[in-house]
């Protein structure tokens, strides 16, 4: 009786182990032909046209290299993030995986999960724009190749601006605040904002900090963890000055970004005059609301009088493909294939991504995206989204503290103080 219990237990254990015996690494086949290689590719492009473009690229590559098998895992944004987090926390990373770079990638690098490709990409790296590459480079080393880049700016409703008697978009912050007042007195909601999701609010503080303190100040803060300096405080005070004008739509504190009554829909249905959002804004406006068509315009975040930052400094983010520490050489070769000019330009022409390669701007067809691409091409500096540039805890605290300033739950002083506290404790 006892022996049979042991046998059953052993059988159950063995059955459980059955599938893990399969090796995914290279296996030597017959003499002459190259070794068989299988690698994984995780990405989150679940929407057309990129979904089928990526599937096509994988097929093309496998056709050219019969010894290579690419296993694709395609997940929607949130599912992708949580699955990648789970896998990386267990100490592994997929061979090729989509990344936003910044602080999250840095954590993965520090955990030894990501391959340093600096030595292997020397032949192609010169072709990428510096802005596109910046999110994946740390201490002079490169850890991913970019596939997309974009920036945040004001998307505005030309008709509503005309209704308020504003002839051209504001170039300075004080002119911007004046325009907000004009819009309000014309009975127009000046700004749409998703207060429930905190990231859209952090754009305001980030851009103001860039314009007032300049890009070096934000980089300096990443190193010395001090956000209480006068320039950062001034940025928070300007966020409060804007919020005090009550420029946001009714019930913005509970509004989401892309839901039927959210920020994008409010903007897309012509119920608010502008929103501060990334290059994806026009398509989400059309998705969640009616879309503005030719009434939609774009202007960069205005300059702040006396500030150290240039109006041409851009703030945004993109996407890239990083390699797991154990990835085979073919995986890197595939990423190079994916970002080759002809291949990448196809995705740009389809309107799926923006140029990451020098001289690719001509491939952009959509007029709104063309404005963004041109602004990026002539950008004098680039800052990655703060909730991605800094370690996750710091980035989330920036989002949270700025949201509290906008809601009036924290003073500007308390906000920069709480960001500094988290940044300091994170660096210990």
């Amino acid at each position, binding site marked *: *009786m*006892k022996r049979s*219990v042991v046998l059953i237990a052993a059988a159950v254990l063995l059955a459980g182990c059955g599938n893990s015996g399969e090796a995914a690494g290279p296996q030597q086949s017959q003499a002459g032909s190259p070794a068989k290689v299988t690698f994984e590719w995780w990405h989150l492009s679940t929407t057309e046209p990129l979904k089928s473009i990526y599937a096509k690229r994988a097929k093309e590559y496998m056709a050219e290299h019969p010894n290579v098998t690419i296993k694709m895992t395609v997940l929607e944004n949130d599912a992708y993030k*949580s699955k990648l*987090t789970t896998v*990386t*926390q267990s*100490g592994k990373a997929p061979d090729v995986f989509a990344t936003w770079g910044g602080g999250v990638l840095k*954590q*993965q690098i*520090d*955990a*030894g*999960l990501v391959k340093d490709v600096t030595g292997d990409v020397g032949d192609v790296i010169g072709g990428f724009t510096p802005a596109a590459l910046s999110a994946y480079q740390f201490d002079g080393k490169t850890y991913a190749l970019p596939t997309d880049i974009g920036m945040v700016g004001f998307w505005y409703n030309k008709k509503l601006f005309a209704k308020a008697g504003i002839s051209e978009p504001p170039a300075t912050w004080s002119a911007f605040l004046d325009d907000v007042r004009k819009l309000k007195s014309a009975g127009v909601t000046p700004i749409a904002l998703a*207060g*429930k*999701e*905190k990231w859209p609010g952090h754009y305001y503080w980030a851009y103001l900090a860039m314009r007032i303190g300049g890009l070096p100040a934000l980089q300096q803060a990443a190193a010395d963890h001090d956000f209480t300096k006068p320039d950062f405080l001034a940025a928070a005070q300007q966020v409060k000055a804007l919020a005090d004008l009550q420029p946001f*739509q*009714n*019930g*913005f*504190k*509970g*509004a*989401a970004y892309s*839901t*039927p*009554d959210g920020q994008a829909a*409010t903007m897309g249905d012509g*119920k608010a005059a502008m929103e501060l959002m990334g290059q994806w804004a026009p398509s989400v406006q059309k998705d969640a609301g009616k879309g503005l068509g030719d009434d939609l315009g774009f202007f960069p975040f205005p300059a702040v009088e006396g500030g150290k930052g240039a109006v041409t400094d851009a703030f945004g983010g993109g996407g890239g493909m990083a390699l797991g520490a154990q990835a085979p050489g073919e995986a890197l070769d595939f990423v190079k294939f994916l970002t080759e000019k002809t291949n990448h330009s196809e995705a740009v022409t389809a309107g799926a991504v923006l140029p990451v390669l020098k001289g690719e701007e001509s491939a952009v067809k959509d007029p709104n995206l063309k404005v963004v691409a041109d602004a990026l091409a002539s950008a004098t500096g680039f800052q990655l989204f703060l909730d991605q540039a800094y*370690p*996750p*805890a710091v980035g*989330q*605290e920036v989002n949270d503290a700025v*949201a*509290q300033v906008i*809601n009036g*739950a*924290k003073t500007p002083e308390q906000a920069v103080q709480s960001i500094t506290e988290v940044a300091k404790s994170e660096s210990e």
Partner: protein
Amino acid sequence: MTTLTRGPEARPLPAPAARARVRRRRSVTIALFVLPALVLFLLLVVAPILIAMYSSVFRWNGFGGLPANFIGLDNFTRLFGTEVFRDDLWHLVVLIAFSVCVQLPFSLGIAMLLHQRIRGRALYRLVFFAPYVLSEVITGVLFSLILSPESGMANQLLRAVGLESQWLSDPGSVMYSLFLVMTWKYFGFHMMIYLAGRQNIPEELIEAAKIDGAGPWKVFRHVTLPLLGPTVRISVFLSVIYTIQLFDLVWILTQGGPSHSSETMAVTMMEWGFKRSQVGYASAVSVVMFALSLVFALVYQRLVMRRDLEGATTSIGGRR
């Protein structure tokens, strides 16, 4: 337990040695049947609790093998020092108070009404119970549409009579709105429990009270309610345990906002564990949640539900 072996084929065993052999064989059989459930329980319930307790005393972002930076109880001191977490506890107290003082009496009232012979009684029972069947996520999405400030149905109806509410978008009203949604979803469940309890009360007792001259209120107060005691106690228990762990609804409706005014412990845990990748700190939150639930469950069972559990097979000394 002893009746198990007394089947028709059981025959008396003369020798004590043979009896011992049978007993041993029986315990092996029991062990075999219990084993799969025990393994699952250890793997899926006990192990995660122990892992969470272990990681809660480390400073750990969740990456790379085991946590190494031991910091003792620092996560807990930090936790109780933050305003957000203290507010979580306050929100818990508020929601429990509301549930016990408003939601449960309301459910009890509806149950008493639907115990009467009224037209369409079965339909009402069905309709009131239906929200409980929906998943929390669907309920959350449904109400975020209904309570949406501009195009939401609630405000469109209110505007027709010249009113308006900020519902979920204002720190002052968000807890009431949240409680409203919780009540909508759960009053039907408690109503069903009360209905079942009410049906177990023999009608003779009610009739006897009526013959003795008791009016409807006195019958309810002195006969129905005391006899519903065990049911009420279990429904309070379920309601409190649910509130301690409240997550899905809040996450969908408000993500704890605006400005943390509707945040619960589970939302804080999610925020720190997954968004800020401070797994040690988030584990500390989960340990506090676990401890609260455990202490409440033990104390409540010991003090309040003692009589209801007497004679239950699970209680200690049940073989007596």
